[in-house]
């Protein structure tokens, strides 16, 4: 990356306290995110992949200061968002938006589609009231919905149409950056493709940067410039998306890729043993070692750091030599 990145996350850490008993005694900590650093360029789409409990959603929320991290830094356009006061935070919310997974839960069913989409404009007082209908119409066209949909109620819409409305609402304030948290996971296969193509198109047309959170690597390969893989709160590997899926360098990425079912048979399958360990007591050293087919004594002793294993490709593994 040449210029300053749009978003720069450094040593992000989010631990949740577990308290028990009458005096709320601290009995442990859930290590949701541990020591995660990455950057997103101005017009870049970064995919963040991981299984449930990997911390990917927490990272996405921390990037927008929707959760307060335990430690670490999140810089947007060079400014530390953790230091923002109310006014600055409000200005930041104009530039950075979020799209959630479930379009049934993230829309107020009592509003019309027009009201849903224009809500951020009204809250932020960005436009005179008289200009709002025109902007709503333009936003609907942007997400390939007919403009008369502004008068409809969300209940009349299908899941795919609802997700377009959510995207239009996020675009209303003309943000530079969007966190999309599993935006197509709740949709049918045939509708997923429509929404992915829409996101791809918006990225090209509006020059948006995006953090695309998903468990679906096939979708990511199509949409993302780079992919980052997280496991138990730690960043395992990050690199260009085509390299990540065709030539992964971390054993976890390799297993994850091989587990994706494909209509054409004959791929090598690696079946990992066991479940993801609990984030209350993650394994020492490399958190993946308990399920890793290549684990060696060094993996239990030391936490592997990210090392550059190719141009723009970073891997946190002690055993790179064997892969």
């Amino acid at each position, binding site marked *: 990356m040449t210029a300053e990145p749009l978003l720069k996350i450094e040593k992000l850490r989010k631990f949740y306290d577990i308290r028990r008993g009458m005096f709320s005694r601290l009995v442990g900590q859930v290590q949701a995110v541990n020591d995660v650093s990455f950057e997103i360029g101005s017009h870049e789409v970064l995919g963040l992949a991981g*299984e449930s409990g990997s911390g990917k959603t927490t990272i996405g929320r921390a990037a927008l200061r929707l959760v307060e991290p335990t430690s670490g830094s999140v810089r947007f356009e060079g400014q530390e968002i953790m230091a923002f006061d109310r006014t600055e935070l409000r200005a930041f919310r104009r530039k950075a938006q979020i799209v959630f997974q479930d379009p049934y839960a993230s829309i107020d069913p009592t509003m019309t589609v027009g009201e849903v989409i224009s809500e951020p404009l009204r809250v932020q007082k960005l436009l005179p009231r008289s200009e709002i209908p025109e902007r709503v119409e333009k936003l609907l066209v942007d997400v390939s919905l007919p403009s008369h949909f502004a008068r409809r109620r969300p209940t009349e819409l299908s899941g795919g149409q609802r997700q377009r409305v959510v995207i239009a609402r996020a675009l209303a304030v003309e943000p530079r950056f969007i966190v999309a948290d599993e935006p197509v996971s709740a949709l049918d296969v045939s509708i997923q493709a429509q929404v992915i193509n829409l996101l791809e198109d918006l990225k090209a047309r509006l020059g948006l940067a995006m953090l695309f959170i998903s468990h679906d690597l096939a979708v990511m390969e199509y949409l993302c410039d780079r992919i980052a893989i997280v496991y138990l709160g730690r960043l395992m590997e990050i690199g260009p998306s085509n390299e990540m899926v065709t030539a992964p360098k971390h054993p976890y990425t390799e297993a994850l890729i091989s587990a994706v079912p494909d209509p054409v048979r004959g791929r090598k399958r690696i079946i990992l043993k066991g479940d993801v360990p609990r984030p209350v007591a993650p394994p020492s050293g490399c958190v993946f070692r308990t399920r890793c087919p290549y684990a060696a004594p060094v993996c239990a002793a030391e936490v592997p750091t990210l090392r550059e294993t190719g141009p723009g490709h970073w891997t946190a593994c002690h055993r790179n030599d064997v892969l």
Partner: protein
Amino acid sequence: MSFTDDSAALLTVRDLAVVFGRAARLTPAVRGVSFEMRRHEVVALVGESGSGKSTTGLALLGLITPGAAAVKGSINLARKDGTRLEIAKLPERLLRQVRGNDVAMIFQEPMSALDPIYTIGTQISEALRVHRKMSAREARAESLRLLTLLDIPSPDRCLTNYPHELSGGMRQRVMIAMALSGRPALLIADEPTTALDVTIQAQIVDHLKALQHQTGMAILFVTHDLGLVSEIASRVLVMYAGQIVEEGSVEQVFKRPRMPYTQALMRSRPRLGRGYQGGVKKKIAAIPGAVPNPAALPRGCSFHPRCPFFLPNVCDAAEPPLEVTEPGWRVRCMRWRELEERAA
């Protein structure tokens, strides 16, 4: 018909129709579904939400609440003792003997299928004591055997666990163990891995395949994921808007789908490692529009409003029949032959 006759169909479904609602607002969920399953066979039933795939699965076990929906047609099942039963007309009392013993089912969300207030041990033992008339001691030993079969670490501890103490993958294993407890000849698996992470999904699919080999049970694998179909099934039924639109061997259908919907569905799914062509990012071929509302189906072929090969006055004139295009390969499309000749 003798018990050992393997060539006879295990299950024959004829003109199955399920209609929800009452006179004024009828919603047909399943429309004229016919298919057969042989013993030991693994068949995938594929479709998007609203295609009628899950409703079909539920109907096979007589699990559609009378009153909520009308079930018509014939569901003929060969029992383990060699007799044949008509499921669609069976009273609840007899259905209970079939469920678990002859046909078992596993669901997408095992948490809602397990009782939260009983331990895993109690729940598996109950099934064994009811279906296989075992004593408490025998039931415990058999429960342990089943959990071990599913690679559950420390199975004796698992027996004392409550469902909420287990991970999603473990719960689904317990569900499978319970389903196997009655030694069913047919297992209906309704999206059993959809709620699980991919690495856990791979484990469960592997287990199901191994167990199918060991026990010889047939599996009807209901899923929306075409990728999974080729992992597990040898034959596939594709459903759209309540009907079967294509049926064939996985090899045939995946290599050269004949129904435009199957073709479009296969192309709309991004495939890993295929995102780039000559260094340029590819676009996914999305299917325009949405699945039709079952209460207001399009005239003629249900897929015609979304079909790239729609021909006016042909596709919207009459409903295409499910035509046998080759032995074992049925297709519901007016134009399949013409389209195939043009493609060749």
